[in-house]
């Protein structure tokens, strides 16, 4: 309608001429064609053609005008048809394009819907690893809004320890080395918690060349992970528990297993005090080597009372408890220190034995961590199993310790110990014994022990003790002599104890074997020392007795001599005597005084000789002459004895002290006379023999008993037995004689037989040099 109005408006305005109106009509037709339908355009074109024709007809002008108007109308119509055709074509094309676009939009919508509705997280990341497109599910998995994600690189939302491997994978994908990568890793949710995901990254198909797009597919595997973790955790804990280790050995493995399978960083075992006053840290484990020192120190110093804080509550209640986020917790005793150490969450598991909480396992993580019901169940089970394990371990350990103690006694005892069977076979020998006897065990069992057993039985039978295998109940000891592998001989003291079986028969025997060689030797030495001491004492006593005897003898001799001296001098003093009497008595007095003088001289001589103060005066001495003189002198006083001389005329002159040698000879001669109370023959002989002058004084008198012959030269010793008992003497004569002979470098000895007489022999060196050292010594 507007077009028709426009035609009439144009007609009215262009009353001037059709040529002027034509472009206007054309414009209207074009507009109509564009704006309105094709029919309207054609109608408008028809109207415009009529309008062009009308003026010439009305005015009836020139036929030429009519023709041109008609031409204009035809052109107009043709143009209108053409325009509408074009417009229609264009319209159709546009409509077709619109339909296509709608189809694409619908398809995309469907795809998007599918993407959004997918149960897996899907996303595209660009070459830099930034999220380009993210589906709803992925946002849910990562706990973040999609828009938030679009600003982050994929690595940013991945747990720190998984970033490296992810980065590598992305690089490989970008370079085209691989087209697809799959892994399981942890990603960080918007609230900071971690979520385990199965991730697959592939080169996006049909992407525009030059632009790298990667298709990321993720699914939340936390449920599976947790279940797997729980199962594996329980398996790991049980494996440790049944592994035969002691509690002390097993603790680090238990704590590390719990941490590994539950994705935790630090674990501590708190044990309840025996008096149940407090929990104290006994064991500690953490994943990383550093960063927890302060926390650890804090724990070490801590004593947590029952009911106090999370641990105290768990101890009290026996129920697993957790704090998901320490930054919000205020009843965790170590929260400040834990936070400072970067720990974010804690789980506490009661360790229960026979219904009693004996400790608490504290598990900490460096990230917030919630705890699910199934975890609580599993951890409760773990707590009970660990509790039973601790008790078993304690019992086992106590047994082992007891066994170890006994073993140590056996192994390290300073005495040898063997265990032998009821049949007498060596079952076990401790190292001390093997070292003591210098045998290896096989030799010990094969030969050394049977020998020792025989020696034991022999020694036991001597002591009237039972043989070893007869069943010894109380340790009777025997000492045996035994050779070692090294060829030594030891004294061993064996003490046996039998250990009966239930029926009372000796099941096996323990024999303790001590090396008492030193003791034996010491006691032997002691006995020897005692014996020699006893001997010395006896000698002292004997010496004491002989001294007393000597004193008695000396005083007897003196008093006997003094009896005459005193008595006769008293007679002389009292007067009234004949001159003959006085003379005779004076003679008795003189003789006895002389005898006393000799006795005193002997004693002094001996004393000087024994103390080394006597010197000998050397000179030439004719031994034969000395003997002849002695015979002559003795012959005048002893009437009952016959003297015989057997002097070697070729005997050289010796060098010596003549007076002393005379003393020797006269002493021997006097003895010979004294001990020949029934008379007999005294023979004096000389002989040169081997550089010595040998002098012998032989009598046929009483002789010297064999038990006394060894002592005749000892001081104060006199033969007092039998017929000789009353023969007086000082007991010094032979002692002096021996001293003098030895001072000359000679020797003196005696041969004798009771009833046949005695022969005293002495030597004097013929060479003067031999005298010199003695002379010098005694000078």
């Amino acid at each position: 309608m507007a077009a028709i109005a426009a035609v009439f408006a144009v007609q009215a305005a262009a009353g001037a001429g059709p040529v002027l109106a034509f472009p206007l009509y054309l414009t209207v037709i074009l507009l109509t064609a564009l704006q309105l339908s094709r029919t309207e355009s054609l109608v408008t074109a028809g109207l415009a053609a009529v309008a062009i024709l009308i003026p010439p007809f009305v005015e009836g002008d020139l036929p030429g005008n009519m023709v041109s108007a008609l031409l204009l109308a035809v052109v107009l119509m043709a143009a209108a048809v053409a325009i509408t055709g074009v417009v229609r074509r264009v319209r159709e094309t546009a409509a077709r394009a619109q339909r296509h676009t709608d189809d694409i939009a619908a398809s995309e919508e469907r795809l998007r819907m599918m993407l959004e509705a997918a149960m897996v997280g899907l996303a595209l990341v660009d070459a830099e690893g930034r999220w380009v497109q993210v589906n709803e599910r992925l946002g849910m998995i990562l706990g973040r809004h999609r828009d938030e994600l679009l600003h982050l690189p994929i690595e940013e939302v991945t747990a720190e320890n998984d970033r490296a491997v992810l980065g590598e994978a992305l690089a490989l994908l970008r370079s085209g080395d691989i087209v697809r990568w799959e892994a399981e890793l942890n990603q960080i949710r918007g609230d900071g918690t971690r979520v385990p995901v199965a991730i697959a990254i592939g080169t996006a198909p049909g992407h525009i060349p030059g632009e790298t797009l990667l298709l990321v597919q993720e699914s939340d595997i936390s449920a599976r992970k947790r279940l797997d973790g729980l199962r594996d955790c329980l398996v790991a804990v049980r494996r440790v528990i049944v592994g035969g280790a002691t509690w002390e050995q097993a603790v680090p493995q238990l704590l590390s297993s719990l941490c590994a399978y539950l994705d935790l960083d630090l674990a501590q075992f708190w044990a309840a005090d025996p008096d149940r006053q407090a929990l104290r840290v006994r064991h500690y484990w953490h994943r990383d080597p550093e960063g927890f020192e302060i926390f650890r120190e804090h724990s070490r110093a801590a004593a947590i009372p029952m009911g106090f804080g999370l641990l105290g509550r768990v101890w009290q209640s026996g129920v697993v408890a957790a704090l998901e986020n320490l930054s919000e917790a205020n009843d965790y005793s170590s929260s400040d220190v834990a936070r400072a150490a970067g720990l974010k969450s804690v789980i506490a598991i009661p360790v229960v034995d026979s219904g009693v909480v004996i400790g608490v396992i504290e598990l900490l993580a460096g990230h917030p961590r919630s705890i699910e019901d199934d975890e609580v169940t599993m951890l409760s089970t773990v707590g009970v199993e660990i509790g039973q394990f601790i008790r078993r371990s304690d019992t086992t350990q106590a047994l082992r310790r007891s066994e170890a103690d006994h073993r140590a006694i056996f192994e390290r005892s300073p005495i040898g110990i063997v265990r032998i069977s009821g049949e007498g076979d060596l079952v076990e020998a401790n190292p001390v014994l093997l070292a003591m006897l210098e045998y290896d065990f096989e030799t010990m069992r094969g030969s050394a022990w049977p020998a020792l057993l025989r020696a034991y039985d022999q020694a036991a039978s001597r002591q009237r003790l039972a043989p070893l295998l007869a069943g010894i109940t109380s340790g009777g000891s025997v000492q045996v002599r035994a050779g070692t592998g090294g060829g030594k001989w030891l004294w061993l003291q064996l003490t046996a104890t039998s250990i009966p079986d239930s029926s009372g028969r000796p099941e096996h025997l323990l024999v303790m074997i001590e090396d008492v060689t030193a003791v034996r030797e010491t006691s032997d030495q002691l006995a020897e020392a005692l014996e020699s001491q006893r001997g010395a004492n006896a000698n002292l006593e004997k010496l004491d007795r002989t001294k007393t005897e000597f004193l008695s003898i000396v005083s007897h001799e003196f008093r006997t001599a003094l009896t005459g001296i005193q008595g006769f001098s008293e007679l002389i003093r009292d007067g009234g005597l004949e001159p003959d009497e006085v003379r005779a008595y004076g003679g008795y007095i003189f003789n006895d005084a002389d005898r006393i003088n000799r006795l005193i001289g002997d004693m002094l001589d001996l004393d000087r000789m024994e103390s080394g103060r006597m010197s000998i005066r050397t000179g030439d001495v004719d031994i034969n002459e000395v003997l002849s003189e002695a015979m002559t002198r003795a012959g005048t006083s002893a009437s009952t004895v016959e003297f015989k001389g057997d002097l070697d005329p070729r005997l050289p002159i010796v060098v010596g002290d003549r007076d002393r040698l005379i003393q020797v000879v006269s002493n021997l001669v006097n003895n010979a006379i004294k001990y020949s109370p029934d008379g007999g023959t005294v023979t004096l002989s000389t002989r040169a023999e081997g550089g010595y002058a040998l002098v012998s004084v032989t009598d046929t008198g009483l002789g010297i008993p064999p038990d006394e012959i060894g002592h005749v030269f000892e001081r104060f010793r006199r033969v007092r037995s039998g017929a000789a008992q009353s023969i007086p003497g000082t007991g010094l004569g032979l002692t002096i004689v021996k001293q003098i002979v030895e001072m000359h470098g000679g020797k003196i000895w005696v041969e004798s037989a009771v009833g046949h007489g005695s022969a005293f022999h002495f030597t004097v060196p013929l060479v003067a040099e031999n005298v010199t050292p003695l002379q010098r010594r005694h000078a």
Partner: protein
Amino acid sequence: MPEEADTGATGPFTVLVADDNDVAQRLCRRVLEKAGYQVLIAADGLQAVEVALNQHPSMILMDVAMPGIDGLEAMRRIKAELPEMPIVIASAHSMASDRERFLAAGADNVLSKPFRLADLVAIVAKLALDRK
């Protein structure tokens, strides 16, 4: 003389001096004879026993250290036959213990050598007096 000796209490008072030392023999004989006693001499123990048993002296003055049997043995043998025989031991063994030893062995008195002549005479005189 044996007859006289047998009676003991009659006749002269006889002293047997048993001593191996001739000086002592001489001294005792001289002193006792001078004092009016008869003196017999024995030079050893066996002789002393023989003389004592055969001649029954009034008393015996007995030395101890003599050859053969000593004075104590001689005294024992004599006392076995003649328990009443007074025997005085005159010994140069003159320690205190010796005196006890001799008395215990049966001696009637002990005279230590050397002795004062007056002591010898007094001991004999006392025994002579006892006999009466």
